[in-house]
């Protein structure tokens, strides 16, 4: 679900990372403050389209992002439909979708290193509270780049389970998966240490 930087050109690429982050944050915030109505959902969709329909990005990419977020959207929508009327539910799901796709716009047009630098700078004031911005930013990025590995490990364990004639039992999945994840964490810790992280 986490999209990665895709090199390109266009207004979103040229905007300095700090401003871009702030701008998208404001838009997402504004969208969240709209009342939960049909027309608000329409406005949110229009905002997404407007943000993506610029040179260098395109509506096809919006489709891809929305598709990648489909399960979150479905779960949100289904959950809300149980308790709320359709108008509320759709508007809330639209909020979530907008937030995800606009966040995707940021990661899509900004190299991770620059995003990290920005996070680091934004957290600088917290340094006085004893927080280490560099460490925090690093943790964030390692977490992001580890997600694909965790997904692949899950697939490996599942396939090994099926290959040995096991069914889809959670119990037989959880143990080996946990062991593999811990082993990976251990190895990753070593790799970080030897590359100068303390």
């Amino acid at each position: 679900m986490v999209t990665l930087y895709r090199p390109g050109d266009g207004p979103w690429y040229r905007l300095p990372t700090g401003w871009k982050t702030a701008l998208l944050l404001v838009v997402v915030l504004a969208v969240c403050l709209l009342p939960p109505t049909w027309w608000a959902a329409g406005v949110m969709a229009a905002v997404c389209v407007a943000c993506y329909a610029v040179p260098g990005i395109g509506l096809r990419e919006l489709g891809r992002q929305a598709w990648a977020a489909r399960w979150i959207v479905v779960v949100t929508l289904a959950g809300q439909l149980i308790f709320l009327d359709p108008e509320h539910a759709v508007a809330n799901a639209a909020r979530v979708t907008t937030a995800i796709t606009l966040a995707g716009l940021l990661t899509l047009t900004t190299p991770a290193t620059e995003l990290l630098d920005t996070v680091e700078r934004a957290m600088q004031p917290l340094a006085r509270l004893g927080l280490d911005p560099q460490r925090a930013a690093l943790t964030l990025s390692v977490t992001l780049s580890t997600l694909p590995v965790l997904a692949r490990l899950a697939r490996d364990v599942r396939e090994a389970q099926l290959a040995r004639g096991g069914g889809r039992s959670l119990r037989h999945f959880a143990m080996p998966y946990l062991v593999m994840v811990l082993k990976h964490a251990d190895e990753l810790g070593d790799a970080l240490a030897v590359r100068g992280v303390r």
Partner: protein
Amino acid sequence: MSGVELENVTVRLGDTDVLRDVTLSLRARTVAVVGENGSGKSTLARLLSGLAVAREGTVRVLGLDPARQVAELRRRVAVVFSNPDAQIVMPTVAEDVAFSLRTEKLSRQERTERVTAALGRFGLADLADRSSHDLSGGQKQLLALCGAFVRNPDLVVADEPTAYLDAPNARRVADHLLEDAAHRMVLVTHDLALARRCDVAVLVQDGAVTRVGAPDDVLAAYEASIRW
């Protein structure tokens, strides 16, 4: 120039001595470490990398004590492991290489230049902006090497760096490791042809170093010791 000096070194993991009373003086540029599974090779590599500590004895790597001079050791010694996946820490190829330069005070431009040059050397220039986790196993291992070499280390410690690779990729990785004369090399390997290409070989058996010398002699002793 000093290489690796071990004097009566014992390393204990859990409640067993995984390395016992090892004394070793290595001055050759490239050193192969061979031995059976579980004999203690990785532990030796971890000891030289500062990831395992000696319980007894003295360890000197490039004249440094890994237990006390970790920061300096990290600057001068690069380490490559066998699992390509567990060595990648950043989302894209170029960023992963740049990560190794994090602790060096470089301008953005200097950093980019160093990264670009390193990627070119390892044939990864075209993949610079690709997602690092989408690379093939061989490409990932080349990326791991690239991340190690971009810092211009004086010593590279590699623990079975070709274990997960097919023959052409293993060959490519081995060539990078052995042919660049700018650094020293300690190479743990089960690939005896690769071990033969080193200047000196070390045989580890059951936690002890039993032979040190010309690869041909050491490997002959190793093969003779294996009883079928």
